[in-house]
């Protein structure tokens, strides 16, 4: 009896009205029982986002947007933010060297990345001299306006 058979059995049992089932089959012993609190099975619960007032207090979830949470740059580090929505690339081409790496020194105006939007390549430049501290934005992923791409020290 493979795993998928068990799942199959489990689904059958789930939708049946019987409350308990025991099974011995080619060496496997299976015992299924429904919990007391309610007879029916709960429909697949879709995680509905409650449009409630305390939603205001919650951190804003951007599930699809790049996973990097927007960390506020501390005083010394300077955040290089996306000037528009698009896809962020760390290098000029797929098999080329990234413009910058962590720890690398950059000068004001150096190109540190590209954002592609509406088939146009928009260069992102360092706002001032500094050393690349971190690169939270993921290469080849969508970035939002104002999202931190790179932090400089």
């Amino acid at each position: 009896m493979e795993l998928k058979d068990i799942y199959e059995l489990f689904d059958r049992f789930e939708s049946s009205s019987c409350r308990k089932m025991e099974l011995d089959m080619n060496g496997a012993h299976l015992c299924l029982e429904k919990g007391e609190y309610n007879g029916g099975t709960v429909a697949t619960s879709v995680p509905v986002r409650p449009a409630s007032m305390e939603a205001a207090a919650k951190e804003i979830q951007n599930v699809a947007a790049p996973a990097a949470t927007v960390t506020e740059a501390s005083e010394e580090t300077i955040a290089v933010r996306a000037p528009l929505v698009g896809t962020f690339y760390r290098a000029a081409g797929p098999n080329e060297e990234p413009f910058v790496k962590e720890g690398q020194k950059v000068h004001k105006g150096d190109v540190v990345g590209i954002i592609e939007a509406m088939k146009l390549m928009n260069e992102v430049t360092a706002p001032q001299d500094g050393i690349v501290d971190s690169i939270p934005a993921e290469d080849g992923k969508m970035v939002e306006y104002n999202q931190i791409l790179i932090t400089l020290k």
Partner: protein
Amino acid sequence: MFKRILIANRGEIAVRIIRCCREMDIETVVVYSTADAKSLPVMTANYAVCIGPAKAKDSYLNQDAIIETALLMHCDAIHPGYGFLSENADFARKCEENNICFIGPSSEIISKMGDKQSARKLMIENGIPVVPGSKGIIGSAEEAAQIAAEIGYPVLLKASAGGGGKGMRKAFNEQELAGAFETAKAEAKAAFGNDDMYMEKLIINPHHIEVQILADTKGNTIYLGERDCSIQRNNQKLLEEAPSSFLNDELREEMGKVAVKAAKAAGYYSAGTVEFVMDDEGHYYFIEMNTRIQVEHPVTEAITGVDLIREQIRIAVGMKLGYEQEDISIANHAIECRINAKTPGIVSFVHFPGGYGVRVESHLFAGYEVSPYYDSMLGKIIVKGRTRLEAIRRLRRALEELVIEGVETNLEFMHLLTYHPAFIKGNYNTGFWEENNETIRKWLEEGTNEA
């Protein structure tokens, strides 16, 4: 059906569309500006993507950013809501070019109907009554004077690309004409980048009656009764009712049929509104067609039981209309009261009314910051009653329950308005505000003095 819809709007209409999509199991992506980061649509949509700074030009009107987001987020369609890009033919065209479904009519219909002058010409050709006016675009103040002489004063100068009361000036006589022409032209240039002007006979204090229509892409077009939007303050609507107490059943049916004819003449599909002005004797004239869902659509929903946003989505995906004309029956009376902020600020506390026959459409919550960048509407209270009097009394009760602290609003003013004889009697026209706002303001001051 669509899997994922991008909502290119904010505030209460974004919440309205998110709720409709949730009920249709459609995922929602809302775009927002940095000023709206902490807003209800952003928190309640499945996904939210920041597309620009506060200024509308760089965010909610930033066509490329919106299209790019729709592509990156694999959205099947974009719902523009009202205002912003909802009647922008270029934006609709860009959606079509990127094969994203624009929830509304085609870009071609939008540009045809958006140009008030070409819309007028189309209606004239189809025998739909229009206000007497200039044939084409007026080249100069002299030409304007000559046309005005033919039509007869007073006249209304309007920007062809105009809307929302912008690029409009009245002229009661020849002396006023040249000045009115130049100022309206300048305002139109600034607001729409297009200063083509045309002229219409000015009906003094007309009734503003608009008919809601729905049409699918299979040639079915129906009307869903009218709305009376005569209570306006410098061309901004404050309160709307459906049906209008100014129309009797024959006129209602006649205007409904004319609206359908106008929509068919334009080859229209989606939800739309055909706007008329009416003089006190009941003569009606086509003014324009709004190729979008409107702020006041809930009053039509209240008296017909039709979810207009849902129908828009069904139509956009290519489905047949869910209703035949016979299925539409007008029952009850509905009134919508718009709640506007007078000052930006943080809403420290908000409590919405509820109970029988009361519907609230709002994006407010405690802690929400009302920003100065966008229009000042905080929400709408829509009431329904078996009769108009019942609806008025329900609106009073609902407004008494509504509490908004932290920002100044027009709540008390609107509450007192519901006690004004001219409102209670009904049959008011667009002169209502001018004739009655002082008395209501006086009541407001007396009220606060006594309190």
